[in-house]
């Protein structure tokens, strides 16, 4: 892999998976308290962190995300009792895959943030953005492009082989 030069002013795109019961409300609470964090993250809500499998994270990278944060409740707090625990198991697998694929493990992160811990949410997002900024754009950038409308149409029209 080519050596990456950290790009200045590079605005990373970071996907956050947050569970409905702890981390998503924490993100809301950050808003209610008007805490500020860099606008690089987009939060995708799932009911539980247990829903997020390595496949979703890898898909995000394949599509060009520069970092992915998976966030849910503390083990004891998970609304579904075992979801967060299982998610931590899955995350281990994800780490292995990321290592195997050979890109920086700092691009992924798992956090356990309760609804009351919105300052932690803000802190984690800030750190994550900073860290990914240092790493530069994802090496997978541009691997998958969306076909233009024209291409789609032509594919649709050509008979399947």
């Amino acid at each position: 892999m080519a050596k990456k030069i950290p790009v200045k002013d590079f605005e990373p795109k970071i996907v956050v998976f947050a569970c409905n019961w702890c981390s998503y409300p924490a993100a809301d609470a950050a808003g209610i308290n008007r805490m500020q964090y860099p606008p690089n993250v987009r939060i995708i809500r799932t009911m539980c962190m247990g829903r997020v499998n390595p496949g979703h994270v890898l898909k995000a990278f394949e599509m060009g995300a520069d970092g992915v944060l998976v966030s849910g409740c503390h083990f004891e707090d998970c609304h579904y009792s075992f979801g967060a625990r299982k998610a931590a198991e899955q995350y281990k697998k994800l780490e292995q895959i990321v290592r195997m694929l050979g890109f920086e493990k700092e691009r992924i992160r798992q956090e356990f943030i309760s609804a009351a811990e919105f300052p932690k949410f803000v802190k984690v997002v800030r750190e994550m953005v900073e860290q990914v900024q240092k790493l530069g754009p994802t090496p997978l950038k541009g691997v998958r492009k969306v076909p233009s409308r024209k291409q789609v149409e032509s594919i649709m029209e050509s008979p399947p082989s």
Partner: protein
Amino acid sequence: MMDVGRHPHIKLFTHTEVLEVTGKAGNFKVKILHRARFVDENECTACGDCAEVCPVVAPNEFDEGLGLRRAIYSPFSQAVPSAYIRSDMDCLGTNPIACGKCVEVCQKKCVNLDMPDKIEVLEVGAIIVATGIDYYDPREASEYGYTRFQNVVNSIELERLLSPSGPSGGKLVRFTDQKPPKRVSFIQCVGSRCIRRDIPYCSRICCMNAVKSALLIREMYPDAQIDIFYIDIRAFGKGFEQFYQRALQEGNINFVRGKPSRLEEDPKTGDLIILSENVETGKTERLRTSMVILSEAVVPAANSHELAKVLGARTDARGFFLPKDACGDPITSTNEGIYLCGCSTGPKDITDSIAEASGAAVRAAQYLSPYKLPEVKEEIPDYDISGPLRVGVFVCHCGSNIAGVLDVDMLKIYAASLPDVVFSDNLLFACAESTQRLIQEKILENKLNRVVVAACTPRTHEPIFRETLRKVGLNPYLLEMANIRDQCSWVHGMNPVSASAKAKDLIRMAVAKARNLEPLEQQEMEIGHNVMVIGGGISGLETAIQLAKRDYTVYLVEKSKQVGGWVKELRILYPSGMSGQELIDTKLKEINKEKIKIFTEAAIENISGFVGNFEVTLRAANGKPAPETLQVGAIVIATGFELYGPSKGEFGYQKYPNIITNMELEYLLKPQDKFIFQNKPLKHVSFIQCVGSRGPDGLPECSRYCCQAAIKQAIALQKMGIQATVFNRDIRVYHHEAETMYREARKLGVTFIRYTPENPPKLVGDKQLKALQFREPVLKKDIEVPTDLLVLSVGMRPSRKSIAEIQRFIKVPLGMDGFVLEKHPKFGPVETNIEGVFICGCIQGPKDISDSIGQANAVAAKVDALLARSTILMEPITSVINEELCRGCGTCVDVCEFGAISLQEKEGAQVALVNEALCKGCGTCATYCPTGAIDIRHFRDQQIESMLKAFLLEEDRV
């Protein structure tokens, strides 16, 4: 407001007065006067055409006269009902000159200048008084020059000035020069806690309100200097202390103890000079500031006395309604059938008011027929969603909460350019009643079959918009929200350009998901009507009593031999003067043996099931046989708290023999007339407050009860001729009458000495503690307070053991303080994240007796609201198995700890089968399925993927 406005069982009368009440509990006749609003309430769509043509300009009451309105106007933007109203005082009417412009312009002909007042007689079973508060007029405290000095404002005016939808657009500027203030000084307790002003009580809300406003100002003006002059900082609610500490550490706010004696104005600059005594030096100092905020007292609503007369209920001299027993029954008024809640009985914050409101509701409900609700049949039209996708996007301004940061017009245009979007529009308040109707119109008009609302968080508002869809027949699950407020405009307020770009992404992602949504149907489920209450303290008892009155069968489980918890140990309760045991006895008398089954010395063996259908197995705590299995529809957890146990050596505990905790003192004081310790009469007793509260060891927040308890004990000692000294950090007596008790204590000669955690009083003595030493700030000298007995006022802490016990079966989340986390700190104080499981009393956080009883009533109301029907609807968000892909490996069966999945034989092969009543839709099984045969409704792989794609790949596509 919205919920009340559209509830099928609530009739709302605004602009209405109660004239006369006759009859008795269960059968009141209430004569009411509808004052004419001159606009047809049901027809008005709040289009605003009338106000536009109105030539009159009058000060806007909602903005405290800082803004303007017309003679016909909407009181404020989220008003319910949303209909406009005409002020008879301001309107030119037809006299002296004929105006009537509004009548002409209104297309729906809603305006009627001759609308008469109307009198109506209602028949009701019970009455609830929730008349709230007014504000003390700071002009009476003339030393602060309110209205004489322009740059002195009161806290409500400040609230409006800081509000983004307020008269100044959320900018705080001085009135004299319209410039941002360099220094803002808050003065607390203006009017409150002051006999001279006839407001002997603490207003409870102003401390936290000032801290909150100070932090807002800090955010707005990072360089401004901010001071708060205070007597005590009373941050006693759940999480309040942490908020206060944050203000201390991060807010860079200058907290000054002491109350300024006077203000002067520098007429040249408009600056103000604060004259105040420095408690450290004892000298009067002059401090120049640019703006002063007065935290004025809270007083009873105007006309409370008259209303009380009409209702036949009693008030105190000031006009607050008097409950039957402020400690044991804070909700019932002195007149049977009339209940009190919120600030009608004294100042209260939102959380406590909401709990009391629910409590009053359950009391009132006892006069209505038994719990079964009439089943309302609603006509829901059919709606055809077949055909190509037609997405509608609504972009909410949320006043200026969103529109103040994001370019909402651009967002609307942008949304329209997204695939399959056939309609997009801006809304001022998407959640407003009138707007809901507008959305419905637009859905029908444009034949929308997917709806995206870009507004606030789906956590609070998804149910509202789903209901909007449902009403027109559109399946409620065809809605997706983009959270452009809580997670965008609010957190990127400093960065509007990127925030708008982010909002574009969020909307694009929501549209992508909406395009992939499918309609889902909710299943109906039968529910049980018994209730399990765990914990037999005052909270548990009260809950059981109230539920039994509503005809539910209640199982009350208590681990010890007797019910009554901590309360039965207390010697004397304030203000009633009865003992704890007496209070418990009165409550026990109310226990209906047929409806309430008490299990003492019992513990929980197992809990399974789900809302409406729990199965609880009990076990005898000490090996007695016969475990019982009970079917219940709801569970209330009221297992209470534990007292902080000081570690050895903490404030000399267990090092000196003459140091005890306040609970130990309570036991010693029990035989009322004599008090001996170590066989000696005592002369001096000292208390140290906040042991195990408000600090790193023990509880991070205030334990609420200990100031009042210590004062009560100090008074008792003082009356026996013993000198009591209370070392405290702040005296937080927030209850209505407690301030009076505090005053009595000082009159009796109890000494109150302030200490800080950095400089606690030092212990003097070898074997026996002889004295406490502290540094007198004014004299700059160490002073010793002789002490024969030291009492440590220990805080409350969560009872880890009983919480852990419950958590084995029910995963209630815990807050950072270790207490059980409520669903919402303000709006859901007795609900948990788990449907059908409720909490009340000190398991949620420290509380005193009357607060606990208030919550117990609230919980009864919530349980009642849940179980007062025969069936409930189940969430359709569950997992689904693609049987073609399933190869019957059983991984999911092992993963699911709810036991919702089993393997079934089907056409000779094993396939997984989901029990939808048990499945909670977490989605963990899908993550583990090796063949990808499991998917989760509403969070399908394809739906998640479409959002990723929209975010990462489709940015420049349109």
